[in-house]
């Protein structure tokens, strides 16, 4: 009972998928619904990258690579392994497969590179993203340049929504737990953190692997929502897009990352009519943002800390 009470908010939020999903299907056309689903996927990507870049203070530019691993592994799974399973079983299976594969990739990349300085990590993860793409393009079994299609539409609004809630919940509770405060400590001062008995490498790798896991899950959802994947969806630009979300929302702010993911996803759609000016605006936004408000919109704060949100200083 006690346990139920403590978890009431997330449970309610997860449960809300059915009424909200129904409501949306009644009121909103598939175009808007698709934007909402993209918001969910992007929010997962942004929050998981925020764990690495914002909260732990590392700098990864390879999030699209992890997403690609998740997308392709889960797609291969649903095509060759769990083909024919009922959706209720197949969905968790492919999500787990995608997430774990990406986490493994994260471990392989993270182990050697996380000892390095921040900017080297950035370029190595960038390189990793490109290597993944080259490997996929040259693997005929997953379609190569022709892309991979034919996955059943296992993910929809409800599953994306639920996964987003779970992803945010896991990362939120982790970094706000006493143990998880060490992630932030690593960002703030690595040497001091080590002097306090914190195995900084281990925390960095944990953040990296967990971030990669959720990027993989997001990739799996993405693959089974569109039903067709191609390496062009997972380029360096996609990684940059996620970085922009994290920066815009505020390095270290989970709620900021979610808001930024929503704003940018909608904004990209809204600016469609600008066609080739769209990416120019995007890059200018990034530069101006760094020059004027490098902390992002929320800085390191969470939306729950806002004055008008709650008058209490502590819950």
């Amino acid at each position, binding site marked *: 009972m*006690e*346990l139920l009470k*403590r*978890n009431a908010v997330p449970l309610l939020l997860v449960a809300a998928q059915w009424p909200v999903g129904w409501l949306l299907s009644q009121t909103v056309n598939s175009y808007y619904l698709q934007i909402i689903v993209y918001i969910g996927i992007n929010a997962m990507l942004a929050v998981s990258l925020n764990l690495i870049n914002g909260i732990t203070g590392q700098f990864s530019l390879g999030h699209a690579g992890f997403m690609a691993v998740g997308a392709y592994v889960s797609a291969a799974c649903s095509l060759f392994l769990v083909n024919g399973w009922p959706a209720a079983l197949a969905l968790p299976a492919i999500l787990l497969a995608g997430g774990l594969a990406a986490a493994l990739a994260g471990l392989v990349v993270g182990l050697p590179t996380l000892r390095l300085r921040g900017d080297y990590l950035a370029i190595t993860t960038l390189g990793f993203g490109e290597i993944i793409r080259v490997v996929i393009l040259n693997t005929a079994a997953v379609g190569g340049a022709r892309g991979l299609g034919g996955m059943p539409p296992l993910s929809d609004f409800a599953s994306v929504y639920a996964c987003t809630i779970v992803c945010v*919940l*896991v990362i939120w*509770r*982790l970094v706000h*737990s*006493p*143990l*998880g*405060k*060490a992630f*932030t*400590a690593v960002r*703030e*001062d690595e*040497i*001091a*953190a*080590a*002097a*306090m*008995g*914190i*195995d*900084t490498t281990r925390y960095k790798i944990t953040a990296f692997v967990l971030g990669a896991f959720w990027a993989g899950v997001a990739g799996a959802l993405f693959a089974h929502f569109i039903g067709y994947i191609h390496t062009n969806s997972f380029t360096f630009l996609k990684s940059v897009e996620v970085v922009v979300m994290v920066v815009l929302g505020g390095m*270290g702010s989970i709620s900021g990352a979610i808001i930024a993911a929503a704003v940018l996803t909608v904004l990209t759609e809204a600016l469609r009519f600008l066609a080739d000016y769209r990416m120019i605006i995007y890059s200018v936004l990034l530069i101006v943002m760094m020059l004027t408000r490098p902390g992002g919109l929320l800085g*390191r704060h969470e939306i729950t800390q806002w004055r008008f949100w709650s008058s209490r*200083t*502590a819950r």
Partner: protein
Amino acid sequence: MALLELTDCSLTFGGLKAVSAFSFTLDAGQLVGLIGPNGAGKTTVFNLITGVYRPDRGEIRMQGQSIAGLPTFRINRSGIARTFQGIRLFPNMSVLDNVVVGANQHIARAPVAMLFRTAAFARHNAELHAQCMATLTLLGLAARAHEAAGTLSYGEQRRLEIARALATRPKLLLLDEPAAGMNPQEKVELMEQIRLIREKLQLGILIIEHDMKLIMKMCERITVLDHGETIAVGKPEQIQIDERVIKAYLGEPVAHDS
């Protein structure tokens, strides 16, 4: 057995002898001062002990176990905590969270409990919270527990560094210029707090400080370094009249006191 024992430690930086043949022991519960003019190698000794540098030669033992060359976090877990000369807090985290990070190694690792916030997790948290608040109270920071560490005054930041180090539950505390930048009033308070900590927790304390008044009053033993070499060891009153020490500090021997 000595708590900390350095035997014949040397470290050279690009031809410059930072520390040469440094030997030193500290027993449980002792409060020892490490002084010397600027650039004498005091902080380097701290960095050797805490694993930031590895000695070229010599042995460092904590409770009989060799710790030379171990990574910093392992050395901390063996019971040595330190503060930094240039303050290294986690400035954007709250005062309380800084201490919580210090207590990291003593927090139960239970991911499932953490995820679902079970009753056991809550209980554990409450205990931890109480402990951390107690540590903060000890250093007079309890009232500011929820402010960001970076917004504290200089003196408070120095005290928070000590609180954070204490949260790791060390047997030996290394304080690197804890009174630097403090006003006289704060210094008096700090001395009182250090004395209290020592009594309550039965720690060994090694302290680097430039405020001689403070050092002379507090330490039972002082080691003086100059050019990486030990030039004097003794009680405060002996050190104060030691010719070599005075020379190291003031230049040539002072002819006579007026």
